[in-house]
């Protein structure tokens, strides 16, 4: 492996954005590896958490954004509380996911039709992911469906969430085996509870989007 470090391969603007979004100083990482040492998911990652920091320090954007690591991070924050340089690495991981997802945030639904359209679009998109089955598409897919649910109902409606996720992610039968147990223990509701101030929720989503666009 060889990395060329020059104006074409490194992206200082990207690093600056990560620093701004996360509020963390990327340069302050001194590569002691304490984050990776305690990370519960490290062994499933393609780049260890400290390596993500290293690539960021060098400004190698694409490798960071293409890594499974940022999607595998469980946000458990073990790294953040132990970092001797007081870097909130979980925030850095969040920022990387935020930056990576920003584009897809643009098209969130606000009525039934666009919700369906959104699901369909993502279904098409995820047909490509089915072949890849990568961590990135899974989490992104889940995040969207989750937020769509809040966006639409105001709360999360689990059966629909899992159903949509399974359809969209391509893991069609994943977690279905759990459904009978859940039903048996009456843990699943059949109808979503919709909050009364749905319009307000939708406004929150719109304004967040608007303000984020302004910031950029």
């Amino acid at each position: 492996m060889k990395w060329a470090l020059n104006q074409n391969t490194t992206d200082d603007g990207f690093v600056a954005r990560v620093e701004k979004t996360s509020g963390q100083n990327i340069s302050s990482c001194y590569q002691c590896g304490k984050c990776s040492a305690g990370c519960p998911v490290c062994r499933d990652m393609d780049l260890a958490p400290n390596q993500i920091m290293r690539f960021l320090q060098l400004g190698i954007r694409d490798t960071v954004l293409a890594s499974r690591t940022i999607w595998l991070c469980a946000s458990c924050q073990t790294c953040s509380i132990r970092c001797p340089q007081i870097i909130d690495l979980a925030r850095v991981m969040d920022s990387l996911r935020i930056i990576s997802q920003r584009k897809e945030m643009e098209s969130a639904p606000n009525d039934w039709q666009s919700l369906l359209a959104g699901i369909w679009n993502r279904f098409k998109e995820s047909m490509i992911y089915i072949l890849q089955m990568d961590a990135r598409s899974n989490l992104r897919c889940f995040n969207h469906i989750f937020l769509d649910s809040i966006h639409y109902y105001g709360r999360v409606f689990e059966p629909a969430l899992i159903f949509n996720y399974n359809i969209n992610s391509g893991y069609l039968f994943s977690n279905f085996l759990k459904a009978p147990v859940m039903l048996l223990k009456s843990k699943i509701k059949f109808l979503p509870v919709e909050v009364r101030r749905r319009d307000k929720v939708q406004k929150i989503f719109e304004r967040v989007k608007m303000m984020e666009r302004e910031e950029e």
Partner: protein
Amino acid sequence: MTKYAYYPGCSLHSVAKEYDLSMKAVCRALGIDLIEIPDWICCGSSPAHTTSHLLSLALPISNCIWAENQGLDIIAPCASCFSRLKIANLEIKKDGKIRQKVNRIIEEEYKGTVDILNPLQLFNRMDMHGEIKNLVKIDMSGIKVACYYGCLLSRPGDIAGEDDCEHPKKMDQIITTIGASTCDWQCKTECCGASLAITQPKVAFRLVCEVLNSAMENGADCIAVACPLCQSNLDMRQSEVSDHLGKDIHLPVVYFTQLIGLAIGINQEALGLKHLITAPFSLFEEKCNLSMAIAKG
């Protein structure tokens, strides 16, 4: 009567309804008045903070307005909701600019005077230990409990409050108060992978195995939790874990509020024990001499 605003969150109305039930029952017995925030909305959980920082602040804060107007602190039993609410409040208190932004988004004037508490903090407040102790009717001394805090109750440091984020003690103190014994084990605050349960089931499964195995090896009879995500993640997969580890794992994963409820003799049905997937009945029958007929429903 102490009054608190109550934010159940989505889980406590579905997969964690037993947490909701037991929480309310225990509070009633202790003379704590929980008033559910009217028309609350989802806190956004992980998907919000991994997608948009502003959204992860605006959703929780929009739920705090009512409590602020009422002059109440908020009890959020779900660890994820608690974490999101607490972090959002901390950030808003720290940064005036962020507060202005969030206020613009929610179109309300939130000042940030509300304190967010999880039940562990609530039951460790002031004289609560003494009150619980006075109410204990059942001898729980036969049970060894592995108190599991997971990530969201212990991290980051400033949400854990005065508890130590690497060696939290609050749940252990409560469990000891009701007469049961606790075990010292290394997975107290290790991640169970619940946030990956749907998107990365294999990774989550490995982490579940580690936690359950460690509890078993340290001689626990059951695991006590204060987080719906941890509960369902550790509870649902025990048969697969048994297959995988090649040993029989049957560790009821109960909400610590259910244990308090049992100890102080609350009507078993009101504790929602039947909703647990790994049945705890034989454990309580054997070790506490309790008849669990009513609980089984």
